[in-house]
């Protein structure tokens, strides 16, 4: 196996990790208004991902960095070609990221409603656009002989890619629902469980159609296997969730996300960005890659540190393994919306013997 193949595989692994982990973060964000009818319930939902969402998002940064390091031509053509789509994703991720941190900082309904909107939109947009992007990557985009993208934003919004977007959108929403059902007590858990079949059916239809289309248009023989696994896992997840086995339902939606990503990368290989203009202009693992020396160094670094990262991230999930109940949520600690005139009695805090 060539080093370029190893790095194609590693980048696939990074995207898989990203979609499995941030997939449920996106799902929780999208479903926030549906599972959280009261402020306390919304906080239950947000706190299921509170300690982990930022670490989950790092998978994206590492996937991006690894693409830059291992396949600079891929990174350059892809990121410049998908310019406006990536701009939208960036804006969404920025708004969503600060929303988690800032929403509780001011104790005002209007303040929280605005940040909730940022969380919902900021989760929905990337969940949709990552699917659109990957469908286009697999299908190929217009690239000239210098591997420069020659299309526009509209080129990316073709039926196959839009279906791909809807597939990831519904898949991540389902993944978020099984996660919420597993991680909460009370009303949020009940609502999340009720949502699983309601999202599951469209997810199966949209995801299934997209995967079958992918298989016949771009797949190779073995990618039929992850397609079948994904479809089977989705159906099983819904059935098992109805049976009340929340842990297994989550494992199955995670498996479906893995299988979808494997099917996409499997269909892509050995290209990394096919040219729809002329197959000879396609970027491949061979012509887009860095030198063997760089790839070798990166391989050693990845070999040494990836197990460590996996271990401490897994430990985080173990530390925060408990379900969150409505009674776990403390009273709001945010400051009032309008600054009060100095209410602090200076004397109250200065004396060393105040206690």
């Amino acid at each position: 196996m060539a080093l370029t193949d190893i790095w194609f595989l590693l980048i696939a692994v990074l995207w898989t990790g990203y979609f499995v982990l941030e997939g449920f973060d996106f799902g929780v964000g999208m479903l926030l208004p549906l599972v959280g009818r009261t402020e306390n319930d919304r906080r239950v939902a947000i706190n299921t991902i509170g300690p982990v969402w930022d670490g989950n998002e790092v998978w994206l940064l590492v996937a991006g960095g690894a693409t830059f390091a291992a396949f600079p031509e891929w990174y350059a053509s892809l990121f410049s070609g998908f310019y406006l789509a990536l701009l939208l994703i960036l804006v969404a991720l920025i708004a969503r990221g600060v929303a988690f941190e800032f929403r509780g900082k001011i104790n005002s309904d209007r303040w929280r409603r605005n940040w909730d909107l940022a969380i919902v939109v900021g989760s929905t947009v990337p969940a949709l656009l990552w699917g659109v992007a990957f469908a286009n990557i697999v299908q190929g985009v217009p690239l000239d002989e210098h591997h420069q993208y020659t299309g526009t934003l509209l080129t990316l919004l073709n039926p196959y890619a839009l279906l791909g977007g809807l597939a990831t959108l519904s898949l991540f929403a389902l993944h978020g629902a099984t996660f919420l059902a597993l991680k909460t007590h009370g009303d949020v858990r009940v609502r999340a469980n009720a949502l699983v079949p309601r999202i599951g059916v469209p997810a199966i239809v949209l995801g299934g159609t997209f995967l079958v289309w992918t298989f016949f248009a771009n797949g190779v023989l073995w990618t039929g296997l992850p397609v079948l696994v994904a479809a089977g896992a989705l159906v099983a997840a819904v059935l098992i969730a109805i049976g009340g086995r929340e842990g297994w339902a989550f494992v199955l939606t995670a498996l479906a996300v893995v299988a979808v990503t494997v099917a996409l990368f499997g269909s892509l290989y050995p290209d990394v960005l096919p040219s729809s203009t002329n197959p000879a202009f396609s970027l491949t693992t061979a012509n887009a890659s860095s030198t063997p020396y760089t790839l070798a160094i990166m391989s050693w670094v990845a070999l040494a540190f990836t197990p460590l990262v996996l271990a401490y991230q897994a430990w985080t999930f173990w530390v925060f393994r408990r379900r969150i109940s409505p009674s776990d949520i403390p009273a709001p600690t945010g400051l009032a919306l309008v600054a009060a005139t100095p209410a602090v009695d200076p004397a109250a805090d200065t004396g060393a013997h105040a206690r």
Partner: protein
Amino acid sequence: MNLDLARWQFAITTVYHFLFVPLTIGLSLLVAGMQTAWVRSGDDRYLRMTKFWGKLFLINFAMGVVTGIVQEFQFGMNWSDYSRFVGDIFGAPLAIEGLLAFFLESTFLGLWIFGWDRLPKKLHLACIWLASIGTVLSAYFILAANSWMQHPVGSVVNTTRGRAELTDFGAVLTNSTAVGAFAHTITACFVTAGVFVLAISAWHLARDQHTEVMRPSLRMALVTVLIASIGVVITGDLQARLMTEQQPMKMAAAEALYDTVAPASFSVFTIGSLDGSEEIWSIRLPGVLSFMATGSFDGTVEGINQLQQQEAQAYGPGNYMPVIPMTYWTFRLMIGFGLLAGLLSVIGLWLTRRRATQQVPRWYYRAAFAGLFLPFAANSVGWIFTEMGRQPWSVFGLFRTADGVSTSVGVASVLTSLIVFTLLYGVLAVVDGVLMVRYAKAGPPPPTPLTPVADDDTPRPMTVAY
């Protein structure tokens, strides 16, 4: 047009991002220090310090994280030809930064924020230290990448592939420029965090409130700023000499020195056009530029005109001068703001010395609060100098900025993103500013009750939650 817009966007998003980064790095370590003091002494004041400064740290951290994602994407989006040229070398430290540093910092910060009641005291303390180490590691790798642009080592240019290729990764990581830049940046991060703590403590002390927490905070900040400022000066001196050796044009541009001279004086202030014509008026320190550049008060410093000729000979005809008024003023402002920050700590330490016979005068508190902007301004102009002083190169001597821009991205697209980022960042600046001010004014939490709640099985809410 496309090039200009992309440059503006890179400048705006990067300078903005770097308002938050130094505070994140410095303050995470100060907060780790405060928590260590609490764990070791059990003194409740240190716990309250940890919680108060920790809260401000987290508001700032969120901004640093979200604006950092843009940085990672922007090379490919706007500078794709640059990315093609440098990817073999530049990508590796970026990827390693993610794997080693970003994972460490965000995972353990999540554990720290939410782990107060889940983790044993010492393990919880270890989390903030690990997150801090993550921020410092991150600085090292990104500075190694940037330093390769300033002083490309460990690589050759493959002309058939039209790109630079890595030949010695160790040389890239131990690049003298990287070591110098890392030392200078990290000490500046401590000045930034120190002045931040100093200014806010002073604001409260001027009002005689929260003195129990703010006095030790002020003291810690003063010592931090003094030590870190000395570090900034020493590492800055080291860097200036490296720069003279590696990028002589940047040093000449820092002084607007057009003709080679020995000894060279340093002008603190000049009235004039800085275009090489006779200046109207200036204050000059004799021999100081020679000392900065060479370590000797009568060393020779090469001038812009001579360097322009040399570079034109080496790289072909063209303009190899950066924008001189920009490099001239940013260089001075960086030094000036930095020295003023250091001065604040010297005066503060004198006024708060143990044998001081009178109370700290109000004017000092006011001055310390007013000094809040100093390190942020110094960091910004320092980087503007470093990056603009390298122009027209993006990789010194190898690759020009103008050749790096994405040719497949249209003007309308770049204009859109420039407007979107500027507006979004503007709104976020207001939100972040309001939250910072409100939480800084609110002061530390009240003293912790002496007797903790009995350790029974009744469910209690989480101590920290979103």
